[in-house]
């Protein structure tokens, strides 16, 4: 039973990080109907920026808390900047192109960014500093839930709540919802659609950066390739929940996290990634609209 709880909590942690990345996919898809392939790379760049900034600050001798805060901010700022730039370069000129064009452009961007980091940094795995402090709590059950996991769970919950508030009540949130529903109508009533799209990329990228920092400090190492697998898994989660739906992305992520955790815990860890891919294939075949998504009828 204890093993079950350990796997359960591990799955929740994993799922909540997937959720941070999945939200970026879902928000972008909701607005411009594009699978932003480069989103995984944005998350990877967030993790790298945090690593670099944290290392520099450690050498400079700052205290741990300051490092955590500054590295996270740097990660968020840079991820947002990359997300913004990627949209401007690779997607904006293709707003009216056939559907496959921006998708291919996105794949190209993803490969480009991977290799950019590979060339500018290294192909090796880099040890990631444990930015999140270890502290004692919940004795004697701490072996079930490590303090980093607790931090991850709390942080993601807070972020989800903030995001929901942002989308529900702020002006930009309303503009985003309007654009997602009907872009040309939103434009007619005076929404600056280009700005909304940019903001969506910025917000999604920030979330991915937070996910990047959290997962890197949890796992303890990163390399240029982490974005690819994480990206596909987060996308799986988004599809599972229903692409375009924000609660769906969170639900899907938690289900995927738990599935992976239990499957690797009880079945076999060799096929860890196969479970995610298999789940992805199965959902798309049997319920392409996802759990909370609405199936949309094609306009003719």
């Amino acid at each position, binding site marked *: 039973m204890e093993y079950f709880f350990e796997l359960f909590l591990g799955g929740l942690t994993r799922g909540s990080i997937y959720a941070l990345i999945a939200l970026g996919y879902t928000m972008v898809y909701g607005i411009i109907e594009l*699978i932003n392939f480069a989103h995984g790379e944005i998350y990877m*760049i967030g993790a*790298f*920026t945090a*690593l*670099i*900034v944290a*290392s*520099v600050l*450690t*050498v400079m001798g700052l205290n741990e808390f300051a490092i955590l805060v500054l590295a996270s901010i*740097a990660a968020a700022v*840079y991820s947002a*900047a*990359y997300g913004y*730039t990627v949209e401007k370069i*690779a997607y904006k*000129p*293709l707003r009216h*192109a*056939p*559907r*496959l*064009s921006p*998708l*291919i*452009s996105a*794949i*190209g*961007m*993803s*490969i*480009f*960014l*991977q*290799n*950019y*980091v590979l*060339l*500018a*940094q*290294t192909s090796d795995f*880099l*040890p990631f*500093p444990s930015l999140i402090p270890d502290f004692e709590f919940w004795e004697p059950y701490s072996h079930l839930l490590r303090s980093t996991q607790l931090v991850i769970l709390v942080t993601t919950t807070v972020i989800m709540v903030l995001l929901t508030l942002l989308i529900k009540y702020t002006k930009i949130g309303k503009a985003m919802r309007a654009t997602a529903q009907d872009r040309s109508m939103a434009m007619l009533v005076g929404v600056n659609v280009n700005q909304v799209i940019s903001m969506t990329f910025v917000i999604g990228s920030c979330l991915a950066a937070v996910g990047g920092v959290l997962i890197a400090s949890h796992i303890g190492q990163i390399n240029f390739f982490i974005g690819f697998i994480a990206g*596909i898994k987060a*996308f799986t989660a988004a*599809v599972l929940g229903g692409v375009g739906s924000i609660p769906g992305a969170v639900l899907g992520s938690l289900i995927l996290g738990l599935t992976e955790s239990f499957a690797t815990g009880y079945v076999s860890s*060799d*096929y860890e*990634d*196969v479970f995610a*891919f*298999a789940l*992805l*294939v199965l959902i*798309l*075949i049997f319920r*392409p609209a996802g759990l909370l998504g609405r199936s949309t009828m*094609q306009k003719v």
Partner: protein
Amino acid sequence: MMPTLSEIKKSFLVSLWFMFLTFPIMVIRVNTTEKLVLWRWENMAYMGIGSFLLSFVWRYMLWRKETGKKDSESGTLQLPSFFERILSDRRYIVPATAAGIALVAIFPFVMDTYQTNIMITALMYIVLGLGLNIVVGLAGLLDLGYVAFYAVGAYTYGLLNHHFGLGFWTVLPIGAVMGAFFGILLGFPVLRLRGDYLAIVTLGFGEIIRLILENWNEFSFGPSGIAQIARPSLFGIQLSLSSSIIYLYFVMIGMVLFTIFVVNRLQNSRIGRAWIALREDEVACQAMGIDKTRTKLTAFALGATWAGMVGVIFAAKTTFINPASFTFLESAMILAIVVLGGMGSIVGVSIAALILILLPEYLRAFSEFRMLIFGAIMVIMMVFRPQGIVANVRRSYKFQPDKHS
């Protein structure tokens, strides 16, 4: 055209932005174990100058594309590319073809085995590109798991050769059939999905196949792969290493010609037109009486057939295969070839395969940046020249007006 002051200002801002953007990744390099920080300020300068100049090029190309679009709307044709101009000029095309044939014939005899090997690889990618071109270029189905069928072909030969000692020529058709079989098997459930979902699912399938090959040791020998696969034999005679490479070279030339022949016939046939119609407008295509699922499935299966065959050749060429050769990047590389060459264009895809495979081999400075460039090519082509370096020109038909009127 002189850049105006406001454009210089714009480019200056772009360059500032990129210096900021690339600052942590390009400038700082940390050695986490020894707690050393390396500052590479020169990179920032390169970045600044480079992006300043590139932003002019970028804007110029965007402007050219816009004017090109306006021209084509008003009836005049789009700007032909360098390759298109060469190809449409009779003065060049005849001597170029003659020189090409001569070069192809003597190449393995004047070059060493190393060069010949590289050329074989390039020829393999021509065939892979043309195969994927059926799926992506003609039928408009973005298949990101194409490498899976390549792996199927390679393992078909590897395993059949290892366990039963079957030879290359026996397995080549089996590889083709296995490719087609897996194409149908994977294609059947996923082909009713919308374009972008299809891309993701095929990507997932590709990775699943690779992961199975990596982990199912009893079947595929896991990451260590299969070694000592037989090279192709000539009427049962085993050739020496160097002559077998020359032999393989000509096999590959034959394969390329065969592929071009078949793809060319396909694209001007009833089936080929149905693929293109499907790519252009799925709803209209169905409304015109074309069975969507069946048409997609033929495209998928035929594309996979080629990957299966080249897989067999790959196993025979390297005599060693393992799952590491069949990653997503391989699929992406083949896709880059199709995108650069021009969707649906046989000549374009062939030229693109030669450029993308040979250039990094001969320009050593390139090889490091190979995947970086491949990624950039996909973005740049989509933004500026989605029809590729050689646009696919549809066949025109002649009619005598008196015959029908």
